[in-house]
């Protein structure tokens, strides 16, 4: 029987290599709805829980292309259609002088897309999350590594999962109230 008051089980590690090994074992044991937490980026940990690709680069590319084409089209439209001024017979679509603004807008739009895309894909801002209910979790931003198996996982079973996590040699295992 699953308890709706429980969000999952959390195991704490104080060594980066133990955490990576534990995350691999968790994934190998068939758990999929899992997450790991570390005080700094650890590529091996996200690999270990089966998270290999993210969409940030794609969002950034799309934003950059929009900024690039948008800025050029705007300048072209202004100078040839909306506000054409004939100065000594020079071409209205003097594209070389539009390149700089086009470039700057490409950078601006791709940079903002990368940042806001990252935040959106991460689901931030999210002021509340059940993992914060565990007092020891404050150490995730200091010096500890955590692995959480969510109660929504198909293989999750309160006693069995706890036993499994305890077998991974953690510092502690605690329930995450939802």
């Amino acid at each position: 029987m699953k308890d709706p008051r429980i969000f999952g089980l959390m195991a704490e590690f104080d060594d980066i290599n133990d955490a990576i090994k534990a995350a691999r074992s968790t994934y190998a044991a068939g758990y999929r709805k899992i997450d790991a937490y570390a005080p700094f980026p650890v590529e091996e940990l996200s690999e270990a829980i089966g998270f290999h690709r993210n969409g940030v680069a794609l969002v950034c590319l799309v934003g950059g292309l929009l900024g690039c084409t948008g800025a050029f089209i705007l300048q072209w439209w202004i100078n040839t259609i909306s506000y054409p001024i004939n100065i000594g017979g020079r071409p209205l679509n003097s594209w070389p002088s539009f390149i700089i603004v086009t470039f700057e807008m490409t950078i601006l739009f791709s940079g903002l897309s990368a940042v806001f895309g990252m935040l959106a894909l991460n689901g931030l801002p999210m002021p509340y999350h059940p993992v914060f209910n565990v007092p020891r979790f404050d150490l995730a931003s200091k010096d500890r590594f955590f692995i959480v198996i969510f109660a929504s996982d198909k293989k999750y079973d309160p006693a069995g999962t706890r036993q499994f996590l305890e077998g991974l040699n953690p510092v502690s295992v605690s329930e995450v109230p939802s």
Partner: protein
Amino acid sequence: MARPTEVEVGEQKAPVIQPGHTFASITDKIAAIVLLRPIKGGWLFGMLICFLILQWFLLAVCYLFYKGVGIWGVNIPIGWGFAIVNFVWWIGIGHAGTLISAILLLLRQTWRNSINRFAEAMTLFAVACAGMFPILHLGRPWLFYWLFPYPNTMSYWPNFRSPLVWDVFAVTTYLTISLVFWFVGLIPDLASLRDQTTNRFVRVVYGLLAMGWRNSVRHWNRYETAYLLLGGLATPLVLSVHTVVSFDFSVGIVPGWHTTIFPPYFVAGAIYSGFAMVLVLAIPIRKFYNIEDFITMRHLENSAMVMLATGWIVAYGYAFEAFMNWYGGDPYETFLRWNRLHGPYAGFYYALLFTNLVVPQILWFKKIRTNPIWLFFISLDVLVGMWLERFIIVIVSLSRDFLNSAFGMYYPTQWDWAIFIGTLGFFSACMFLFLRLLPAVSISELKTLIPQAEITVKHEAEVHQ
């Protein structure tokens, strides 16, 4: 954030972080500056002085808005006085922060991890100072938004063929990207402060700013991608910004401005003065906040070497300017050379050569490069030198261009000085606040540099074989 975790303790190089630190000690030490350290007399005194200068600045700006730019020394032929000199100087200073945060990130220079945070803050405040000058210099500053293309009832559009409009786009993009780069870097550290503090109010404030960051490795993965992409985008951006600033000059036909060497020479000069400002800030900060463990002699020496290298690029610029004045054979350019060396502003030119070219050469000596006191004063000297360079470029060229009937002199008034020194007060006041409110050294990035972060388990691909 690069991955290498080794801490070099070579015989010759000072370490990036003093050995013996752990994840916990790094967090505690940096967070304590913000959360636990009481406000001391030194900080209050410094802040008070900067605050007073800032008030002087506000007074000068109010009077400027009331009377107009006539209170400055600018007049035809010299329409670009201190405002443009200071604009170029400040924006150049900003460039070092982006160089450290973006270019050194892409080059995997992990020593940057301990100085990038405050260097980025420096960039932000310097660009804010720079951005004020063109607006203050507008005759009707309240109409500054006319520079942006927006649909309006006057049915006009900005002139996209003008370098001044390019500049608007370059500088606003630079400010925006610098701001998000800095803020993205701060998110995990804000979460650290949120988790460290015991004060409910402080926890809520940092919690709101951290937006609920919970250190999930999925988040870190996307975060790293976004951070690297920003680094990749900021690198061409920072090179373009001072290039566009130099276009303000080189697209014009004034003698001394119309030259193709300007873009690279401006960018090198920007980094030169920027690293000088990094040292001017880093040397007192590491001393007063006892973070010599994180900002070590290695950082100071590397910055000094960057200064030496960019100083020589600037020297090459001076030499080639002089060569082209002579080799080009243009009488106005030849006159410009004579005017710089013997004209009414000759003293400034010799001061420029002395401060920018002669004095920094003592950085060739390792003893000087590893002595914070010497470095501090050499950096101040370079900052003065680079300001003089912009003064020479703007004022000397404009004072005597083509017709002798249009020759003139520029004398800055007390309001010119008030606004220039006022921005120094604004910049320093912002730095003082930054030091007390935000972590001045990146907590999460430093952790990747210590032995505790070393990964010894095999890579997943090897495990499956």
